[in-house]
């Protein structure tokens, strides 16, 4: 039986196949709690979790907060717009001040890739969970995507997964690539050349496609990425309509995938840009199922880091 011995979860790249499988199977067990009348277990009673969000978020922050509360931890949210960051405090100083209040877990989202590794070194005795760092990783999203696929197909091994959109700026894509390829899925990437990072084929065991058609042909899963206007310059695409014509998912090109293919999106969706509303609300869409699984996956992550070894 696999054991989870990490203090932090910063990237799926740092985890083994067995550790990822353990996180997913624990999440499957956690799901039962979310369907009861009394949605709470006493497991993390007395633990304090700080959600520190330097970037906007609805789903992830709410989901982590609910996950902590359902495990009986005390959760505190800090958003930077209402924190001392606006007064010029550095991340290191914020971290040391929070540490003085003895939290057990800090869940952080930050716009700088790798900032969690920096923070982890400064915070002995406190677990760090990455809720998204720049264009690096978003491990909880990767795990909940994998759980949603596993629910649908009963396995991840051998699945053909197409990831379409702005690969360069997508931490969701990176976490999915790391996790999925470790568990034996085949990952195909497609996106405009301006949104495909140089050396994309080195992101892992992936196939980089020139066209969207090539990527989604006979796919089991079509995962569409959000066009991240806040991270992009203005020059990456001429306009939303042209992007939608070449790299948008609609009823027509979805037929190229397997008939029972599932459609996923990490949200928030730009309707009519990366996906037509017909597909978003259609029978193959698993987008709300992803959100539902997010709570169970985050409960699993919080549970296992609390049992990890402190350095």
């Amino acid at each position, binding site marked *: 039986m696999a054991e989870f011995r990490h203090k932090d979860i910063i990237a799926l790249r740092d985890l083994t196949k067995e550790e990822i499988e*353990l996180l997913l199977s624990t999440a499957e067990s956690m799901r039962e709690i979310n369907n009861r009348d009394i949605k709470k277990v006493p497991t993390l009673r007395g633990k304090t979790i700080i959600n520190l969000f330097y970037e906007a978020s609805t789903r992830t922050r709410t989901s982590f907060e609910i996950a902590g509360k359902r495990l009986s931890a005390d959760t505190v949210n800090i958003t930077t717009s209402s924190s001392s960051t606006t007064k010029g405090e550095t991340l290191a100083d914020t971290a040391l001040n929070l540490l003085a209040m003895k939290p057990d877990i800090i869940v952080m989202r930050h716009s700088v890739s790798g900032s969690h590794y920096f923070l982890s070194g400064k915070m002995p005795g406190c677990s760090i969970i990455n809720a998204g760092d720049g264009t690096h990783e978003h491990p909880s999203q990767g795990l909940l995507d994998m759980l949603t696929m596993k629910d649908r197909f009963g396995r991840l091994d051998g699945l053909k997964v197409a990831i379409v959109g702005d690969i360069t700026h997508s931490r969701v894509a990176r976490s999915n690539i790391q996790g999925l390829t470790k568990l034996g899925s085949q990952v195909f990437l497609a996106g405009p050349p301006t949104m495909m990072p140089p050396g994309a084929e080195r992101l892992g065991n992936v196939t980089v496609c020139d066209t969207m058609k090539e990527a989604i042909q006979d796919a089991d899963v079509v995962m569409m990425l959000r066009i991240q206007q806040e991270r992009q310059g203005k020059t990456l695409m001429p306009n939303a309509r042209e992007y939608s014509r070449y790299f948008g998912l609609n009823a027509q090109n979805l037929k190229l995938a397997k008939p029972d293919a599932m459609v996923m999106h990490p949200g928030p969706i730009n309707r009519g840009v990366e996906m037509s509303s017909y597909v978003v609300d259609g029978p193959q869409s698993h987008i709300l199922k992803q959100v539902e699984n997010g709570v169970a996956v985050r409960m699993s992550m919080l549970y296992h880091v609390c049992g990890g070894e402190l350095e």
Partner: protein
Amino acid sequence: MSEGGDAVAAEQTVIMDNSGIKRALTRISHEILERNKGLSDVVLIGIRSGGAHLAEQIGSIIKVIEGEQVLVGAVDITLYRDDVSGHLPHHPVGKTDIPFSLEGKNVVLVDDVLFTGRTIRAAMDALMDHGRPQSIQLAVLIDRGHRELPIRADFVGRNVPTSLKENVAVLFDEKHLSLEVVLEK
């Protein structure tokens, strides 16, 4: 330590064989029916993993006796343990599977070995989060003593006096049918 050997492998003695287990479970099944005057509002909940397998077996025996299937569920107590705050790798979490309401039911909680009573305490807390049962009764195959909490069993397969250094294990085959009970020294 045992003499002469490497003293690494635990010494195992079979204290209850397969037919002994069957007889004990059959008697427990009759006692459950007698105490509850039949099956109305009775549900069996086994504690993962050994107790869940035994609950299934008691369910099958009751079906033979009464000709009626009793509701059987399983509870995993990992998230209710009182030792999760330490920094050890956490136990894997099993699935709790209670696809029916416990409101007003007479719940028979089933476990393989009753020892300190801490598992039973955790299981009762877990059950209460699934509704308010009318009563909770406890059935165990082996009671080995050494209680640390004020808990006792209503139905006992066999009382086995043990020392704290010993371990009692109920072994199951791959179909989750009980094989034998061993005492490890």
